[in-house]
């Protein structure tokens, strides 16, 4: 498909989506006080932007997000790869992981507070947690699925040592799977930003909860759209980079 066809289709999709939303909001199927129409967003944006709150919140959340995302992604890929590579370590940690995995962000909050205090660090910690798990499982499966023949090839050409095997065979071979995990984590991180700012750390999430508590739904929606745009752009860029990195994939 030509690039401009793609862009046109995407634009069409967004327009259809916005129109449907506007229609639902106007029809009254959903009470207007719970779902403002998208046309209310620009005005809300102006107010928040002028008061400087929008910029402050975006910057704050962005910093939690970026720190949490990088940390979670890095550790998730590392631990997932390690578990997939060493049977012994895998067996050792398998059930510990099973015990820690389902603990929700909310239950980690007390620990976040204990370890980091009510600080930016705590928010980043919570974000990194969810991102960690997604990357852990994606990397684990991807590394497990690397073609054994290629690993054998590595041994045949003196690249069987841990470091060359890992960086020349396993990681490139697992890359498509790992990147799919990173991408899923990209969104999961934003989903967690809100939960991570429930306890006194300022940012988009906190502002949204505050607005939601006062039923200022147009502000809530403004920040939802903000998150959507931030995520949308980063996901788009990620996909661009990915398609270059995986250009060998046909």
């Amino acid at each position, binding site marked *: 498909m030509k690039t401009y066809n793609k862009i046109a289709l995407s634009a069409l999709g967004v327009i259809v989506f916005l129109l449907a939303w506007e229609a639902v909001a106007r029809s009254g199927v959903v009470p207007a006080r719970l779902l403002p129409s998208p046309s209310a967003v620009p005005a809300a944006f102006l107010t928040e932007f002028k008061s400087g709150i929008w910029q402050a919140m975006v910057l704050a959340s962005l910093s939690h997000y970026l720190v949490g995302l990088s940390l979670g992604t890095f550790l998730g890929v590392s631990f997932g790869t390690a578990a997939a590579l060493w049977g012994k370590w895998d067996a050792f940690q398998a059930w510990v992981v099973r015990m820690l995995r389902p603990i929700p962000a909310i239950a980690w909050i007390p620990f976040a507070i204990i370890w980091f205090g009510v600080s930016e660090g705590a928010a980043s910690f919570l974000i990194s947690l969810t991102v960690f798990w997604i990357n852990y499982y994606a990397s684990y499966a991807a590394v497990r699925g690397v073609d054994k*023949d*290629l690993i*054998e*090839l590595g*041994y*045949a*050409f*003196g*690249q*069987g*040592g841990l470091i*060359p095997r890992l960086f*020349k*065979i396993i990681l*490139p*071979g697992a*890359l498509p799977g790992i990147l799919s995990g990173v991408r899923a984590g990209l969104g999961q991180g934003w989903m967690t930003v809100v939960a991570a700012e429930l306890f006194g750390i300022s940012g988009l999430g906190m502002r949204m909860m505050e607005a939601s508590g006062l039923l200022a739904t147009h502000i809530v929606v403004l920040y939802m759209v903000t998150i959507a745009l931030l995520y949308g752009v980063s996901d788009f860029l990620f996909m661009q980079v990915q398609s270059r990195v995986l*250009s*060998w*994939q*046909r």
Partner: protein
Amino acid sequence: MAAVTFPKTSTASVIDLEDVSIGYGRDAPPVLVDVNLSVERGSFVAIVGPSGVGKSTLLRVVAGLHSARGGGVTIHQDQRPGHRPVGLVFQDSRLLPWRRVIRNVEFGLEGLPVSRDERRSRAEAALKLVRLDGYARRWPYELSGGQRQRIGIARAMAVDPDILLMDEPFGALDAITRHNLQDELRRIHQETGKTVLFVTHDLEEAVHLADRIIVLGGTPARVVRDVRNSAGRDGSVFRDQVEQLRSEIADNYSI
């Protein structure tokens, strides 16, 4: 992956297999049994035998990629800097799909004390050898079957190994390309004194190139024949040798 011993001393035989038996899985019957084989330094040994007899398996054991079930596998080969002791051409071409052709050829050179420039120039030379110097920047999926196989040969040649293990390296090549590469291989063998272990289905090729031919046969397979060969390229000696091998294989054909 390391059931192979590399003793420091350098003797006349480079590869020594003693009473080796090989199998896949724990309980499956062995594929090869009682393999006794000692390959002299600088010799060119062809391995022939029916499909599925265990030729690739034997090569993988010599390369240290598969451990034997029993017996001793010894490789007497020092590591020379800038070279790998063993170079292997796989039966399937086995290229890394995420590397362009030139980087696939460079693969075995990485990690050796070889400068980046030398690595590139050795890889380019190897590509030229297999007549694919115009294909350096292609992805593996953009190659034909025979081209892929030649990249596999170039990769093994680039590391300039003392022992060259080749698993049907010319199987997917047309007659002319094949002859060219056979000549190149013979030249390299004679000039550098590499030890070559060469699996082939083409008996003419075996008789033409090798100075020793090992015939595998039977279930489980063993070495059924081990012939010194000095038949030339053509003529009646050559024909006789090929015909004799053919009947030898037919007698032990069981898979």
